[in-house]
């Protein structure tokens, strides 16, 4: 029996409570910052408590690590553009998981006798940790454009992946019974690293957000397993919180993309490769100019703006805000309709518009705005496509049938800003564009919006 260090244990309990309260704060923008302060204090307590616990006998490596880590972390946080958020989260998962793997290896090689009793937890820890490290790095590479973002596939890929998976599983079971076999231990880690690479390889860049959330979940599981291995409850709790978070976000995304969750969980995520060139129907569309748009907007009492991935690509969020200001100055009521998976990351549109100083109570969720959509005079769709595709409501044969969408087609006039008739992420045709009340305003979102704002400024 180890002797319990009660002050340390109490500190850890308090830290756990603070983490939970921190995440509870995120239920509303009002309480979010206070919540994060709770979580930060929790982390500080856990660290300081550990440092003062009496287990620390040498300080030089700790200090070096903390200083170097803080500098790198601060630089990354301060100089990173908001648009690079997915990459940053990806690489950060890799770091977190790496720490878990190293702690696990240390337990195994240094505290050998103790490690043997806790092999199940230790195995989980290094296994999940290792595949999260390389999986996240792959995701980072694809998002950053270092690795080609297209799916990399080859014949027999599934067989190789499944084979490796069972190989690792076998080694894990073997180690539980014969933990002394260090060669197998390290081989298992190496193969786990490989699996991380292999399972992300065949996944297209656009699907990376789902991968990110899964990695979040896995990193959480690795941390929880570490908690079991070193008998540390705060690790178990923090790990479970992360695990649930990643899990729930993956569910939300897969639901909103109309994919089964199993499909996502087992890594069979691939960008749909539809040849869109032949899709365009020969039905007529209505084109609008910037002047037409201004004319229609001037008549409106209520305008709803629906942003999508195109707004992020064009970096048009600030210009959108200017348009909204110009309209409000003329007494028009402006709301933003935010679809849960607009963009490429949960909450993507909200962060961009918040960055551009749009008030968060103007950002309405799909369920809130849809019932009022028929009272909108004009709906401006800015670089959104799939999330406003009425085929999800009407066409049983459509791959997105059943997915909830923003009912822009119920507004009196719909103005769609995009560069072409091209399809969005799902690669499917959008009948909205051919509706009689839909007007197409072609061009890069930022350029078009700048012209429009300039028009409003003229008089």
């Amino acid at each position, binding site marked *: 029996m180890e002797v319990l260090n009660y002050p340390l244990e109490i500190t850890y309990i308090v830290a756990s409570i603070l983490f939970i309260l*921190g*995440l509870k704060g995120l239920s509303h923008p009002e309480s979010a910052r206070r919540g994060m302060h709770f979580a930060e204090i929790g982390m500080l307590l856990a660290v300081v408590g550990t440092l003062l616990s009496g287990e620390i006998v040498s300080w030089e490596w700790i200090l*070096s690590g903390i200083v170097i880590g803080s500098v790198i972390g601060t630089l990354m946080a301060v100089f990173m553009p908001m648009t690079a958020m997915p990459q*940053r989260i990806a690489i950060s998962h890799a770091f977190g998981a790496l720490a878990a793997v190293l*702690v696990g290896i240390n337990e195994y090689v240094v505290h050998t006798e103790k490690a043997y009793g806790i092999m199940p937890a230790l195995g989980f820890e290094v296994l999940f940790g290792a595949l999260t490290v390389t999986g996240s790095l792959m995701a980072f590479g694809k998002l950053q454009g270092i690795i080609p973002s297209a799916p990399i596939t080859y014949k027999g890929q599934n067989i190789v992946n499944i084979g490796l998976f069972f190989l690792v599983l076998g080694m894990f079971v073997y180690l539980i019974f014969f933990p002394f076999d260090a060669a197998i231990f390290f081989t298992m880690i190496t193969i786990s690293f490989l699996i991380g690479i292999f399972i992300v390889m065949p996944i297209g860049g656009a699907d990376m957000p789902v991968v990110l959330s899964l990695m979040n979940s896995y990193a959480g599981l690795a941390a929880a397993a570490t908690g079991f291995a070193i008998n540390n409850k705060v*690790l178990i709790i*923090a790990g479970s919180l992360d695990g649930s978070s990643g899990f729930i976000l993956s569910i939300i995304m897969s639901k909103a993309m109309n994919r089964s969750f199993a499909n996502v969980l087992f890594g069979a995520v691939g960008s749909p490769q539809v040849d869109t060139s032949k899709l365009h129907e020969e039905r007529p569309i209505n084109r609008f100019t910037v002047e037409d748009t201004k004319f229609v907007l001037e008549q409106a009492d209520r305008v709803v703006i629906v942003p999508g991935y195109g707004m992020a690509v064009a970096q048009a969020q600030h210009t959108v805000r200017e348009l909204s200001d110009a309209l409000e100055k003329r007494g028009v009521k402006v709301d933003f309709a935010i679809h849960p998976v607009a963009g490429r990351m949960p*909450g993507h549109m909200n962060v961009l518009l918040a960055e551009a100083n749009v008030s968060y109570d103007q950002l309405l969720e799909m369920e809130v705005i849809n019932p009022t959509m028929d009272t909108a005079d004009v709906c401006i769709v800015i670089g959104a496509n799939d999330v406003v595709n009425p085929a999800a409501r009407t066409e049983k044969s459509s791959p997105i049938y059943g997915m909830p969408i923003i009912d822009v087609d119920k507004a009196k006039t719909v103005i769609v800003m995009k560069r072409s008739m091209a399809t969005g992420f799902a690669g499917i045709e959008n009948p909205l564009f051919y509706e009689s009340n839909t007007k197409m305003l072609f061009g890069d979102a930022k350029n078009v919006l700048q012209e429009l704002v300039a028009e409003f400024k003229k008089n």
Partner: protein
Amino acid sequence: MTNLVELLYILILAGFVGFEVIKRVTPTLHTPLMSATNAISGISLVGSLVAAGSDHFTSQMLGFVAVTAATINVVGGFLITERMLKMFKRKERK
């Protein structure tokens, strides 16, 4: 692990808490949520510190790298979350 049963309870209950709490996170803050949990997952720092602060050289080396990696996670994650949350403001509207 003499307290395996208790740890299992803690895992399960924390999973329930996580599930309930995360479900209530407003979709508006899903991106900050991702970076916040990312920062919290830097809790591995606690384990890393003990390794880096031991008197065994291998532990110190493994621990040093782990401390660095986990600190990047914690410091970077919380800073970026703060930076994002600071942007979410409510304007006084006339």
